[in-house]
């Protein structure tokens, strides 16, 4: 995974060792750093995180936590509560979530953001995404990716006004159902694939691909943000198909 040096630094008040030293530290205690590359004002560390540590280290937070333990530097999560204003209105008024099988989706959380204006994201977010090898698309898509790179939790954004019946259902797909993804690929679905559906159709292949129908476009006003945990076996089998 490509990890930004500056991003790591943002978790610490103390100055981190220089990139080369930091890479050695990780290589001898945790993971092999395969490449160190300068990128504008930043450095990219390409870290080979092996499957046994994927769950806690495939993110900037994860690597920062590892470094904190190795150097005994205090590590602080960024407190976003101070930065984001929340209204009293409940998200459940906009969207109803239904999970058919708890085993396949132990937890599904969502938030609704209203009065959204779609446009490019701030430059510093775009830069961090580019450093980590992602392409900036729009503020909503970028923030979902940004959160994933920082925390390791994948996110997905739907256009709330395109969800039929104001309802999202987590269920197995039915044989014969089809979905077109955001990148315009057609997928034939079957019962082995977990999907997020509105009242009528699948709108997202859980944990794998977003659908084009409720995708964000320049006219989007209200968005639903998804952060969910799915059964890893089902996702893995689905992604192989």
């Amino acid at each position, binding site marked *: 995974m490509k990890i930004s040096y500056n991003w790591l630094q943002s978790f610490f008040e103390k100055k981190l060792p220089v990139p080369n030293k930091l890479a050695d530290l990780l290589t001898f205690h*945790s993971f092999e750093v395969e490449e160190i590359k300068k990128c504008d004002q930043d450095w990219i560390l390409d870290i080979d995180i092996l499957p046994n540590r994927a769950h806690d280290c495939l993110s900037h937070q994860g690597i920062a936590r590892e470094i904190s333990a190795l150097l005994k530097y205090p590590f602080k999560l960024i407190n976003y509560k101070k930065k984001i204003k929340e209204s009293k209105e409940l998200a459940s008024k906009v969207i109803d979530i239904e999970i058919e099988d708890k085993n396949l989706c132990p937890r599904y959380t969502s938030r609704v953001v209203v009065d959204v204006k779609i446009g490019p994201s701030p430059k510093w977010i775009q830069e961090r995404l580019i450093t980590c090898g992602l392409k900036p698309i729009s503020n909503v898509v970028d923030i979902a990716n940004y959160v994933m790179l920082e925390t390791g939790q994948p996110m997905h954004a739907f256009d709330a006004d395109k969800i039929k019946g104001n309802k999202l259902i987590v269920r197995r797909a039915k044989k014969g159902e089809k979905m077109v993804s955001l990148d315009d690929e057609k997928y034939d679905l079957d019962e082995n694939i977990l999907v997020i559906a509105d009242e009528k159709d699948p709108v997202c292949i859980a944990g794998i691909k977003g659908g084009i129908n409720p995708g964000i476009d320049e006219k989007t006003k209200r968005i639903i943000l998804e952060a969910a945990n799915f059964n890893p*076996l089902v996702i893995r*089998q689905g992604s192989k198909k």
Partner: protein
Amino acid sequence: MSNQIKQKAIEEINQANDLKKLEEIYRIYIGRKGKLTKVLRSLKDLSEKEKKEKGKIANQIKQEIKQMIKDKEQKLFAKKDVNDKKEWIDITAPGIKVPQGHLHPITLVQRQVEDIFQSMGFSVLDGPEVETEHYNFDALNVPKDHPARDMWDTFWLKDLDLLLRTHTSPMQARYMEKNNPPLRIIIPGRCFRYEATDSTHDVQFNQFEGLMVGENISVSNFKAIIEEFFKQFFNSSDIKVRLRPSYFPFVEPGFEVDIKRKDGNWLEIMGAGMVHPNVFKTAGYIKEWQGFAFGMGIDRLAMIKYQIDDIRLFYKNDLRFLKQF
């Protein structure tokens, strides 16, 4: 009929001026499908009387032609001898030696590895190249649908529900099922990976697996043994070994082993670790044993030893390459 054939044959025999031509004449007339042979064969359809009469003539002609060919042959031979005597042969000169085969570099390295480990009390074993999913993965703590399986790109033999082993590690499980510790083994052998080839990767490669299990075998035992191995292998007392953390599902903890080269750079050379308790459990061990396991590329050792920069050369069978060993 027979007489016509006889005339033609005599004419041709007289004209023939070398042994090859004569041989051809023999084939045309009295060979297995020769003209005269055909006549002789056709006799069986005739009446008893005719058979006797014509048979006699035909046989006589056959004998005559045979004799003529023989005579002519001798003449030609004599002539040939005369020609040959013009060339000079030194029959006392030593003959050309039959080229002697020699061992492939991989075999040379494998034998050296075996010798070194045998001198340290390890037994050398052999295992099957076609494996079951159980021994290649499940018994080694790599469950189905575990992301760790992605670490090995596998050739599956789908119809048989088998696979080409991706490492020599399955023999750990096979051996431990049948033998109790203390044990010390190495298993050299060919392995297969379904991946794109480049100068350091090939779809087939040679590996050797090591396993040492006892009551209190530790990482320091491993480090000492492997350092001794490299000292003997590279014939140098100045070999430094270091361990870095890594992950292989069948060991805990797992490490990469680097050795220090003459130029001062560290070189990643093998993977190793302490055998995972799940592997012992699957093998049926009840008592708490501990031990280490490692896997090293024989091709890689050969590349370092002989300074070869492309692994694919080993299997190209280019004599210009092979003759250097």
